């Protein structure tokens, strides 16, 4: 960085980080829910949690993005040019993707509500929703019954959303720390691991008993977190031995101005701690213990425990770990944005 130069992180700050994080997490939650629906159809609460949190997350993300794009916020008709102005720009492609993903996610949330209503004994619901679910107009039947292929289309768009949020940053050649092939993979992996975290968090809050079935989810989530740590290491490693500007970014993160949040908030609290806890929880689950109670079971005691006697204190620990993982996803994006350095362009002798 030269004196007087602005940093990429000053141009794109925490709002963009928040948006990238929310859009990625929404895509991850949808994917988790879809996988649940296919692989474990009996775990309804997990599926519903994922499908229901997905649309609000991406919508909040889009709103923050519009507020950040102030010129557009004050002249909303200009957003129209996003569709016709320059279709080859990654950001425009992202707009197309989100234009498909957001309604698909909303649609699946409505289908989930209908499922919940049916499951809950078809009681009376506000806004006349019960009547709508019971007797939808003929042309809106698909809206209540759900269609497998639409869910699948939603999955494709979810994956596209996660990928695009990663490529948006990865495509910036002016910032070598962002412009490499590891960063997009890291963002996508992080999108799915935060997606799992928010889904499990919501499902646990909804019905703590589903925790008994978390083993396969934790297997996926821990693998993703492990992969994330490895990718982070690879990103820093190649950046250090790469371009001068990327080297400066690495130094900033490892021992420079961002070292404290990097080590404490991201590596320890955001990744390592939840990873360790999830590994432990998974082990207990596989051993037949109820997760939240597991820690209170004396070592060596392998008797299955009654799910009804969950200890609230330990229940809270697993929820806090999910929250840590979620916040870690935001911190990851924010730190990577802040750590960006523009290429050095001055002549050298």
């Amino acid at each position, binding site marked *: 960085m*030269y*004196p*007087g*130069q*602005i940093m*990429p992180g000053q*141009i*794109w700050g925490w709002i963009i980080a928040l948006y990238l994080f929310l859009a990625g997490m929404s895509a991850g939650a949808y994917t988790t829910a879809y996988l649940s629906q296919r692989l474990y159809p009996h775990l309804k609460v997990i599926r519903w949690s994922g499908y229901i949190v997905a649309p609000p997350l991406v919508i909040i993300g889009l709103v923050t993005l519009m507020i*950040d*794009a*102030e*010129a*557009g*916020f*004050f*002249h909303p008709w*200009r*957003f129209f*040019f*996003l569709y*016709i*102005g*320059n279709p*080859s*720009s*990654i*950001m*425009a492609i992202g*707009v197309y993707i989100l234009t498909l993903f957001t309604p698909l996610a909303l649609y699946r949330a409505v289908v989930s509500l209908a499922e919940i209503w049916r499951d809950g004994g078809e009681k009376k619901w506000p806004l006349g929703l019960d009547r709508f679910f019971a007797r939808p107009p003929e042309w809106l039947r698909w809206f209540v019954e759900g269609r497998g292929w639409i869910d699948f289309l939603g999955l494709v768009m979810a994956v596209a959303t996660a990928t695009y949020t990663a490529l948006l940053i990865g*495509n*910036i*050649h*002016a*910032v070598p720390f962002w412009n490499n092939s590891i960063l997009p993979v890291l963002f996508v992996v992080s999108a799915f691991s935060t997606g799992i975290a928010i889904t499990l968090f919501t499902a646990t809050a909804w019905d703590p008993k589903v925790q008994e079935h978390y083993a396969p989810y934790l297997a996926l989530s821990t693998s993703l977190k492990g992969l994330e740590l490895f990718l982070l290491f690879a990103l820093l490693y190649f950046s250090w031995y790469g371009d001068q500007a990327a080297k400066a970014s690495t130094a900033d993160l490892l021992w420079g101005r961002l070292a404290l949040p990097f080590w404490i908030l991201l590596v320890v609290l955001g990744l390592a701690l939840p990873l360790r806890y999830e590994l432990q929880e998974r082990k207990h689950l596989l051993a037949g213990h109820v997760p939240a109670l597991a820690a209170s079971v004396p070592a060596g005691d392998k008797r299955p425990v009654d799910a009804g006697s969950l200890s609230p204190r330990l229940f809270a620990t697993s929820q806090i770990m999910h929250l840590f993982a979620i916040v870690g996803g935001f911190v990851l994006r924010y730190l990577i944005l802040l750590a*960006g350095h*523009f*290429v*050095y*362009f*001055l*002549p*050298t*002798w």
Partner: protein
Amino acid sequence: MARYGMLIDLTKCAGCMACTVSCQLQNDLPPEVHFIKFYQQEYGTFPVVSLVNIPVQCQHCEKPPCVYNCPTGASYIADGGVVLLNESKCIGCKYCMTSCPYNARVLNEETHTPMKCIFCFDHVKEGEQPMCVQTCLGEARVFGDLDDPESELNKQINEKKARPLRPDLGTKPKIFYVW
């Protein structure tokens, strides 16, 4: 149509920043906003060392990442290869600002859209020189048509072996520096 470019001879630049100031007057910029930013670089090994002043503005790249990444088509390549911004299409996403390797764009706090050097497009259309070229006392700046082999610009580029900054980035900048 011409293909406008510029040469900046760093060996002649005194670092007086008159170009920056005349550019600010020309474009009605507040004092803290510069289209021409001055950087300094040391070179040599002790005791034979020197310090150069390096003015950097929009390089009017032939393959401008700012234009390629702009999602609304607000940034575009105008006649003469000059890179301009159509404010009425700009949503202020600042993708061009992060995409520009030369840090050429600054944000207009009033309109919330980016701005940058426009090669004094209106003057150039009338056959005049850009303001920074007119102002430069040391005659360090030469403006002209890169497609015209007879132009003063091309002559000096060849004679002085002028090079663009970081051509390896592939943006094909049209400002050539002598150093």
